[in-house]
């Protein structure tokens, strides 16, 4: 495959991720029916000898970045981002062995969870998928997570960044407790908080390092504090 063809295929791959075209059998989006999707294009590029890190950096991550911009501008909505993430995952199935062999190095580790007392999952899941799609290794601890569990995970993954989610005003105090425990036990761990009732002012008050209004704010923060 010549360089021009590689560049074009990477661009098509980015488009497949952006528009949620996982594979050739995907019926979505309608105008790309019958064409190769992220899964086939990634395989094609690997077979052509394109380095997996380049596929990630010039195909997958730009695709996720573009859908992110549209999401922020309210041109697309949560299901569109999830469809993009689905396409990203279809491609990642081919790239995973290269992460294991260290041919691709993730930007870092992001540990995310919903604070104890709160069972809301969707916003946190969305952040996890978008962050993963931006080249980070993500550890999703789920919902109703005790502070000690965050601490244990941080200790087993030095250098990790933590994200906390809360969707109830009544669980925001638990977010405060979690940040306090993290800052006391692992003071160098950057912590970003988010969720519908959370504000930048609240984030600052409880000692969090940042507030994320949406998943892409988390990605920006991660790239600032720990990204390669």
């Amino acid at each position, binding site marked *: 495959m010549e360089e021009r063809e590689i560049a074009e295929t990477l661009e098509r791959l980015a488009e497949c991720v952006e528009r949620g075209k996982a594979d050739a059998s995907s019926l979505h989006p309608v105008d790309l029916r019958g064409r190769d999707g992220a899964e086939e294009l990634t395989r094609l590029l690997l077979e052509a000898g394109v380095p997996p890190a380049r596929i990630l950096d010039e195909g997958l991550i730009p695709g996720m970045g573009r859908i992110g911009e549209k999401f922020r501008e309210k041109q697309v909505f949560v*299901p569109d981002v999830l469809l993009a993430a689905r396409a990203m995952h279809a491609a990642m199935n081919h790239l995973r062995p290269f992460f294991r062999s260290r041919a691709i190095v993730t930007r870092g580790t992001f540990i995310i969870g919903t604070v104890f007392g709160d069972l809301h999952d969707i916003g946190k899941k969305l952040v996890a998928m978008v962050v993963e799609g931006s080249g980070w290794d993500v550890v999703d601890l789920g919902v109703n997570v005790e502070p000690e569990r965050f601490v244990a995970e941080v200790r087993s993954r030095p250098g990790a960044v933590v994200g906390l989610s809360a969707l109830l005003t009544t669980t925001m105090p638990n977010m405060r407790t979690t940040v306090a425990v993290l800052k006391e036990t692992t003071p160098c761990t950057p912590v970003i908080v988010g969720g519908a009732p959370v504000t930048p002012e609240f984030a600052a008050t409880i000692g969090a390092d940042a507030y994320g209004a949406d998943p892409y704010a988390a990605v920006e923060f991660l790239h600032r504090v720990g990204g390669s």
Partner: protein
Amino acid sequence: MKGRAMKPSVPMSRTIRTMYLEFGELALRMERIENALGYPLRSAPPVVSAGIADVLRECEPRVEAACGYVLLQPGRTRMGERSIEVEGVSLSTGGTIAACLRGVDRLAVFVATAGWKFHEWFERLSREPDPLRYVIADAVGSEIAERAAEIVEETLRTDAALLGMQVTSRYSPGYCGWPLSDQRLLFSLLPPVFCGVTLTETVFMVPEKSVSGVIGIGERVERKVYDCGSCPDVLCDRRWKRPGAP
């Protein structure tokens, strides 16, 4: 007395009404679910519309929707600038809601839910690797609870009309500046496990897809259109989710 309508006497005790709803009674509308997912009218991609249709088909046997209200005792409602006191319980509704409830004679506390079976199914979906179906089920579950709440409001309106009274809109803790923590006080006015709904320690309603709140009743009250513009809570998630909202 012939030819002159008799106004029924207002019962002086609490009135409790519970309803169990068939799936068809909810009359769920595809465009409202699409809208809840963010899409303006008829703009959802076919894959999302098909996903909603699938979820509706799959959840139908799991929906055990219920709703009901407790019409609190008359003569024991005191209005404040930012609160309302009923049966000795002071609800800190905030100024926006207190203003909308001004003039009410009685207050009804309502609950509406999609039920436990839906809750358990929804929880199982959360563990699936692809979250699209989970996100769609979340919107469908919220819509079921919302429709059940609309039905309880309509029922109360009909019941109130028999007493020659009007009803206000419905208002819930967590919105329009009414602290969510007041949910516990609200539930203290209900019989235990009313409509099968309880509160966790952090006042999270279970089953998850449930709605609670108050509706005012009075001879001179009116149902006001929900107006985000008059509410000081600029961070309310509903404000941003509503298309065209300020």
